[in-house]
Structure formats: C-alpha cells, structure tokens
C-alpha cells in the first residue's frame, strides 16, 4: 500500500508538472464548452434555450391582396415560423444569402388566378437544412390555401411537450453533457498511451522493472492518477456551466460517479488496445485522435443519429462515445433513459476495462522484461 501511494504521488507530480498535459486535460475541454456553448447553446450566458420560431423572409407580389398578407401572418406562428417582409425579390434574395435579420430562407408569394405561386429562396451555405426548410414551406403553403378557402382543418394535431427531467432542460445543459462525454473520451483514450507508451519509449518502464516495485503497482497507480486528474476537468466544466451559462443540473451523484469511472476505464482500455496494436506512442496518439474526431461527429453529440444514413447509425452503435454521451445526459438530469440500459452499459464498460487493462499491463511488462 505504501509503495502504491508513493507511486501514485510520483505519477501525480509527473503529470501535474507537465504544463501541456494540464492544459489538454483541464482547459481544453473548457475551451470546447465555451466555444460551442456560446456558438450553439443559444448564445446567451443565462442558459436559456435557443429554440424559437424559425425566421424567414417573404415578399408579396404587388398584385397580391391584403388577405394573403394577413393569412400568412396568422398561420406562421401556428407552424413555429416568424415572417419578415422584404421590399423586393432582390432584397429577399440578398437577405437570404446574407442572413439579414436571422432569416433562414425566403419565399415570394404571387396569386395568379386560382393558383398560388410560391418561389423559395435557399442559401447555398445552408444546404443540409434545405429539406427541412422545404418541408416548412410545404406546410405553410397548404395552410395558406386552406385558410384562403375558409377551410378549417378537420383533423387537428395537438403537440404536447413532455418533460421527464426534474428541472427544465436547456440547449446548453444538453450540450454540456456532450462536452463532458468528449472530455472523458479524450482523456481516457490518452491516459495509458501517455503513462505506458511514452514511459516505455523513454525506457522508464525497463528501469522501473529493475526495482522491487511490482508492475501492478505502477499500472493501478497510473489508472487512479488519470481518474483523479480527469475528474478535475469534469468538475471545472460543471462549475463553469453552472455559473457562466446558468445551467441548472439535477445530478444523480452516485450514477454520475459510476458512469465517470466506468467510462474512463473503458476509454483507457481502448487507448491501451491501440497501444498494444500500434506500439509507438506517437502513432498510437495519432490513431486515438482520429478515432476521437470520428466519434465526435458520429455519436449523436452534435447531430441526431436518426438523421444519419443507416450505415452510419450502425457505426455509431459501435462507438463508446454514443453511450457515454447518452449516459451523461441522464446522470446530469438533462434527459432520461432506461435505467436498465444505463446499468448494462456501465457493467459492460467495467467488464471490458477489467479484462483489457490488466492484460495490457501484463503484456507490456512482459515485453519489457523480455
């Protein structure tokens, strides 16, 4: 126990004195939170949700009667849209292209006999949202022609927003869970690559094995070290999210701790597996970076999985970050999930870690002894 403590303290000092390691472990995830939080989390520092009506530009042809104008205004709100009138078609096109007044798309409306002519204007830079906007315009067009005919919908839809979480969830709160998942994934992946890969490369492990210390002491002291240091990053992110962005978490602490430990252990074992395969620490680090980048985009953190093609959804199922992000939203009280699923994923994470990490230690020490 004493030797374990000494080893733990030595590794702790080694890691905390490395300014780069401290920067990447503690402050880089924070930078991530600030950039993405401000950019996509509603832009406010109060944690309010960014979801409001979608603004669009509209130009009414000069021959259009006032009814068309009134109908559009009255039904837009019903469909979650907010029209902004343009003075000409050219102004509308320019507004769409330059995003004036925050408009996302534009339409011109022209009544020709019995036909309503709608011309939609989309911004080339917003290509991936175009199908969503087209569907908004379709709904709007149907609403206009029905209203103009004085026809009231026979079949109505009543949409109810259900909240399962104990406190109101905001966009930024939802995003913080994703940022934490990314932070755990990155630091977990890098942990053993740094401790084992570079120590092996610099022959520190070899020298260490010549001492009475056991390999397992080094291994578990390294694991505990990484768990402790990365937890500081999680705490910093949570504090900044709470005080700078006003996120009101309702954290399930026991589940949070379990989820953090098992996720870190899993990611450490994935990093360890990479190290076993690629051996050279720089090469392993590069592979781990590419893997993390890929996971970041295909794990439902930024884009809903349902929008992705089937094959990518299948790929996402094999990425740990998908589950880590989901679990993290649950433990922070930002979303709900099946409790059984939460515990199953955690047990699987732990099981993988408990098999791979000792195996990695044994393999590396054996290689060093040989």
């Amino acid at each position, binding site marked *: 126990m004493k030797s374990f403590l000494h080893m733990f303290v030595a590794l702790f000092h080694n890691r905390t004195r490395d300014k780069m390691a401290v920067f990447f472990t503690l402050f*880089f995830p924070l930078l991530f939170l600030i950039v993405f939080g401000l950019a*996509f989390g509603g832009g406010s520092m109060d944690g309010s949700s960014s979801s409001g009506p979608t603004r669009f530009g509209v130009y009414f042809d000069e021959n259009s009667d006032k009814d068309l104008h009134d109908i559009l205004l009255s039904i837009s709100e019903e469909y979650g849209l907010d029209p902004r009138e343009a003075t000409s078609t050219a102004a509308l096109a320019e507004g769409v292209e330059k995003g004036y007044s925050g408009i996302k798309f534009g339409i011109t409306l022209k009544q020709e006999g019995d036909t309503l002519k709608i011309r939609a204007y989309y911004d080339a830079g917003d290509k991936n949202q175009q199908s969503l906007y087209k569907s908004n315009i379709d709904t709007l067009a149907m609403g206009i022609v029905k209203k103009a005919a004085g026809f009231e919908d026979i079949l109505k839809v009543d949409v109810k927003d259900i909240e399962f979480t104990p406190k109101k969830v905001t966009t930024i709160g939802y995003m913080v869970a994703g940022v934490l998942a990314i932070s755990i994934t990155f630091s977990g992946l890098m942990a053993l690559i740094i401790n084992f890969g570079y120590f092996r490369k610099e022959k520190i492990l070899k020298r260490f094995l010549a001492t009475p210390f056991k390999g397992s002491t080094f291994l578990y002291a390294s694991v505990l070290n990484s768990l402790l240091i990365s937890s500081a990053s999680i705490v910093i992110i949570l504090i900044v999210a709470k005080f700078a962005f006003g996120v009101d978490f309702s954290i399930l602490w026991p589940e949070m701790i379990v989820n953090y430990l098992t996720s870190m252990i899993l990611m450490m074992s994935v990093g360890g597996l990479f190290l076993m395969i690629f051996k050279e620490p720089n090469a392993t680090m590069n592979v781990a970076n590419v893997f993390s980048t890929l996971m970041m985009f*295909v794990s439902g953190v930024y884009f809903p999985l349902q929008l992705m093609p089937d094959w990518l959804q299948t790929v996402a199922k094999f990425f740990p970050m998908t589950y880590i992000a989901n679990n993290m939203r649950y433990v922070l009280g930002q979303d709900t999930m099946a409790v059984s699923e939460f515990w199953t994923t955690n047990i699987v994470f732990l099981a993988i870690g408990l098999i791979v990490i000792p195996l990695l230690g044994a393999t590396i020490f054996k290689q060093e002894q040989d």
Partner: protein
Amino acid sequence: MKMNLFKALLISNIREKEVLFWIFAFPIILLTIMVMIFGSMDGQDINFKVALIDKGGEGMGTTIIRDVLKDVSTSSEGRKALFDIIVLDDTEEARQMLMDQKVSIIIEIPEDFNVKFNQVVFFSRITAISAQSPTVTVERVALRNASTLASDIFKQIMSSVNLEAAKRMNVKISGYEYSEETVGQSENFSYADFFLAGVLVMSFFSTGFFALGNDIAHNKHIGIMKRLSATPLSIRKFMYSNILSKMLIMVMSAVMLVIFGHFVFGSSFSILNPETFPFILLGILDALAFGLFIGSISKNANAASAIGNVLFFPMQFLGGLYFEVWDISPAVRWFVYINPMTYIAAGMRQGMGIVDAPVPAYSLYLVPLAWAAVMLVISIFTFDWRGDAS
C-alpha cells in the same frame, strides 16, 4: 547555400512522422469523415420509432389516420419507411418508452375521435352547428432533435391529409405551384468542394501554427539559433529557408488533398480557379504570419503548442471551415467577423463558385491582409533568436 539549407529543412520536416500524419494524412482523413457524414445526410434514410395508442375504435376518421400511418410506415422503392410504428394499449407504457428513448414521439388517437370526426364532417357542415375537431395528440420531448423532427413531420402529414379532405369535400381550394432557387452559388453544389476549401484552410493554418510556430520556439529554446550565429550561416537565411520549406509543405499537402478529393469524392478542380488563387496565397501568408507570431512569443515548443491550440481551436470552428457561421449567435459573431480564416474560406468558396460570401469583396482581402501585417509586425518586434538567454 540557401538552397541546400532549404532542402535539408524540407527533407528533415518530411521525414518526421508527426508532420507526415498531421499535415499530409490528417487533412485527407478529415475530408473523408466530413464528406461521408454530411454528404449522406440527405434525409432519404430518415426513420423514427413512434408509439401509437389507438383508442379510436372503428369509423371513418380512424380509418383515414390508420391508412396515413400505414402509408408512412411502409418502405417504398429506394426510400425507407418514415415511421416504425409500435402499437401499444397503455399510455403509461408508451410514456415509459418515450422516457427511455425507445420511441421519438407518442401518437394517440383518442376514444372520441370518430364521434368528433362525424360531428365535424357530417352534422356540423349540414346543420352549421359548430363542433369540436377530432384531435390526434402527439407527445414529444422538445430538446431531443429527433422528437421535434418527428412531430413536425407528423404535423405536415396531417396538414396534407386535411388538404386532401378539403378537396374531396368539394371545398374550392386553390392549388399552389412551388419553385425554388438557391442563392449565392453555382448550379452544382457539392459537399466535397465545400469541405475541400475548409480542410485546405485548416491544413495551411495547422502547418503555420504547429509546424512553423513550434519549430521556431523549439529552435530558440534548445539554442539552435545561438549555435547558428557562430557559423557563417545567417539566422535570417535560416529563417527564410524554414519559412520556405513550410510553404512548400503546405503546397504539397494541398496538392495531395485536391487530387484525393477529386479521385475519391469527385470534387471539382475549381479550387484552381484564378479567383480562388488569391485566397490560397492569403491562406498561406496568414498561416505563416501566425506561425511566426506564435514562434516569436513562445519560450519553448510546449508553450507554442498550447498557444497554437488556444488560437487554432476557436479559429477553425468559428471560421466557417466546416459549417456556415455568418449568422451564428451574437455572443460569438464578433469573433467570426474578426477571424481571418472566415474570410479566407469564404473567399475560396466564392472563387470556386460554391457559396458567395455575404460580406463586401474588399473585406475578403483586407481582413486577412491586416492580420498578416499585424502578426508580422509583432513577430519582428518580439522575435529574439537568443531564446531564454536573452
């Protein structure tokens, strides 16, 4: 002499595995990831799991709804079914499934649906007595994107059902004609071209920030420049050769990326348009200027790397390299507008005929040029080849 030094530095850089990976391989990997993800997000495969609680019994109203739901839950040629419907009897069970993320929304047809439907369709229209409309309830979780999308899509489907019903009831409804125009681009938008420009800018700046910046800081720190000063080789020549070698690496990486993009993802060669060329030059100039700045103000490679990362991360994500940022949240829009990467990427895409930049043309040149000038002036005043010894 200068050429020999340049060649030596170039070869030494290219032999470094890190350089090979981050400057040559990573941009190609990133382009592949981006094009594969965004290029295939066309909504064709979109599918939602939906819980249906049908308490409506038999009648015309429920038959219409069931037919509609059957239609959207059946896959057609080349298109996946929009909804996978799970029929449930119990509201609590459906709520539990929504809570557990097993379904995106719950659709509930209430018991009185047919009664109300008949009242509205038959009696109220004949007797002019107003009646309550039959209402389908949709329950969703607003912050789950999939849940919001699924409910919006269902609302749209119901809107078209209502339109069809109106026509069948001989209500005089005008038709509508739809046409569309995409502003600010050429006819053939391609994600491969869009991301090619962004990844190219990323590649230039990562060479400047990390290869040049770290190199200069490292050389100062370990005293290479000090040792050079004792040789006939001037430090100025060494710096020129170093900068020139990084420039050539940027060009080589760009050529590889363009060829890869073209042959693997079918991106065009519009990056070679004469209109794009000034922005390639500006990208290289700014990347080098930032690299010099980072190298000049950093004491060692670690510090350079940390400064580089702090600058590079927000600059690339808020520089429109991977998605449009012009109308981003006002809290960070100022950063977008002062960020040289924004203008270089936008200018490149405009030159390629993909997306027109929503800012005056002169600003596309002026902002990156101003940054290059500022960075170079600061570098000149702060650079000290003696490193720590100074």
